[in-house]
């Protein structure tokens, strides 16, 4: 009788209930539900990601082995695209630019984030939420808006930065004309936008460190500096690896900041002063449809670089805190 509660009440028009059959049907349905539902629920992700994420990735690999025109035909040429990369002056220029901006942004950004996170981690800090929110706010705005605002700040003739430099006697800098200056301008956008984000992630890692470790160290007479080196940094390693990896992936894919800074010029400055790898890939694969296969090779080269740099980062961070 208790089982009858699990079946729906018979509708008036239905024939007199035949309990055993109904019950077995309900059980079959139930079984089917238990078996199939999970797959139905995860299916949307796998279907959409399969079509628009995974398949294009594989296709990039396939394309990179061809002389591929996005609107026309294609011929298999093996690894020719990859060997061509080695002699491609523009490719190396883009690589150097990408890494230059990457170092100018990642290193100061992470050091600053570490400093700010340590400050925000103080137990007795007032207005904690307010500080956290204010520091994170730059991350909320779109890259396009940031690049527009910074483009104006770094304007040659009446930009704020050059005006401030003139106050200390430095001549106006034509920011987008040279490598070092354009890298600095672009890196400053990246730093402004991401320092707060990294601060929060590092702060979260710091707060997960058990407080009694610090108490024990304080009893043993370790000062705050020593506590930072001997407890905070080693315990923070996993978080630090995470933050460094994210910065690497983001930094080596840099696209919007330099593009908007160049007013939409995909080669990044008159002489490609700040064309990044992502911009070069876009130039080859989308602006210029006939070199899509070669662009695909650049995409894979980028991926390999990201993987390598992530690996090096991982090993370095692990070793330095051991």
């Amino acid at each position: 009788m208790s089982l009858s509660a699990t079946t729906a009440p018979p509708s008036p028009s239905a024939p007199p209930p035949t309990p055993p059959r109904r019950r077995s049907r309900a059980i079959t349905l139930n079984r089917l539900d238990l078996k199939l539902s999970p797959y139905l629920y995860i299916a949307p992700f796998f279907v959409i990601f399969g079509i628009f994420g995974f398949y294009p990735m594989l296709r990039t690999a396939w394309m990179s082995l061809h002389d591929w025109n996005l609107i026309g035909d294609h011929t298999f040429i093996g690894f020719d695209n990859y060997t061509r990369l080695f002699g491609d002056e523009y490719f190396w220029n883009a690589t150097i630019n990408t890494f230059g901006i990457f170092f100018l942004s990642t290193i100061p950004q992470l050091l600053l984030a570490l400093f700010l996170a340590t400050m925000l981690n103080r137990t007795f800090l007032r207005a904690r939420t307010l500080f956290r929110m204010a520091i994170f706010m730059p991350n909320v705005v779109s890259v396009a808006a940031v690049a527009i605002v910074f483009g104006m700040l770094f304007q040659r003739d009446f930009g704020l930065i050059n005006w401030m430099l003139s106050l200390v006697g430095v001549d106006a800098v034509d920011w987008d004309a040279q490598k070092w200056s354009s890298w600095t301008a672009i890196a400053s956008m990246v730093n402004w936008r991401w320092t707060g984000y990294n601060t929060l992630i590092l702060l979260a890692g710091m707060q997960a460190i058990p407080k009694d470790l610090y108490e024990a160290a304080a009893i043993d007479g370790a000062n705050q500096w020593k506590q930072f080196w001997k407890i905070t940094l080693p315990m923070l390693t996993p978080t630090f690896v995470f933050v460094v990896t994210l910065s690497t992936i983001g930094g080596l894919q840099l696209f919007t900041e330099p593009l908007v800074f160049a007013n939409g010029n995909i080669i990044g400055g008159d002489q490609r002063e700040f064309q990044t790898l992502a911009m070069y890939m876009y130039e080859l694969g989308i602006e210029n449809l006939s070199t899509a296969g070669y662009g695909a090779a650049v995409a894979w080269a980028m991926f390999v670089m990201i993987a390598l740099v992530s690996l090096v980062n991982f090993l370095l961070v692990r070793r330095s805190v051991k």
Partner: protein
Amino acid sequence: MNQASQRLWRTSPLLYIALVVAVLFSVYPFYYMVVIATRSLDQINDVPPPFTPAGEFGANFGRVLDNPAANFLTGLLNSVIVSAVVTVSVVITGSLAGFAFAKLRFRGRNALLLTIIVTMMIPTQLGLIPLWGMIQDFGWYDTLLAVTVPFLVSAFGVFMMRQYAIQAISDELIEAGRVDGASTFRIFWNIVLPALRPAAAVLGLLTFMETWNSYLWPYAVLTPENPTLQVSLAFLSYAYYTDYSQVFAATAVGTVPLVIVFILFGRQIIGGIMEGAVKS
């Protein structure tokens, strides 16, 4: 303990100064955006540059609206549609899949979950060129389908909802639902989804902001005639960079909604980000 707290207090003035400087650096570009957006064109070229807002915003924003090449209102409307659709879809598909991975048993569960986590580490740009070609083949170029459909699901969303579901929903609750004869979907709808609401809100906010702000892909598949807001802003700035007041009035209008959302929900967003950081 008391001594330790006293030592902390003694270092605090410097600490607060450092933090206030950091805050000023974070907030200044927003302020600067407002300053330029509310100044007339010739005031911008003053030396020294202006430091306070003035009253020209209406005129500047009027130029944006009158500018037929900017397509600002089309961009605004497109961004609202795309962001809303993507957000709702990411939250629903993320909750469903997150629930399945957290609470249902099925063959291949761990392998499938691992697949999702791995995909989070692959840069999206790796598939950019073929995806662009696919959009052409589908006839989706310059339509909102191109900027919506590929983003209806998110690996991060699935992962985040799973992490939350594991700790927020007790197995007993689901068992009780089963004993009462509820189907799996009923359990999801009536028990799981309400319990997931806090995480769903954070995921929704993050997704909305990300979609609203995305630039590279919309720039690649939309024309200036049918842009999203960011694409419209960028084209406006490329073509009218001498008219900074106009460009900044548009940029400010595109940014203010986000800043308001952030001020209202910043606490939850930050909480969500920090929680996600510790778990992953």
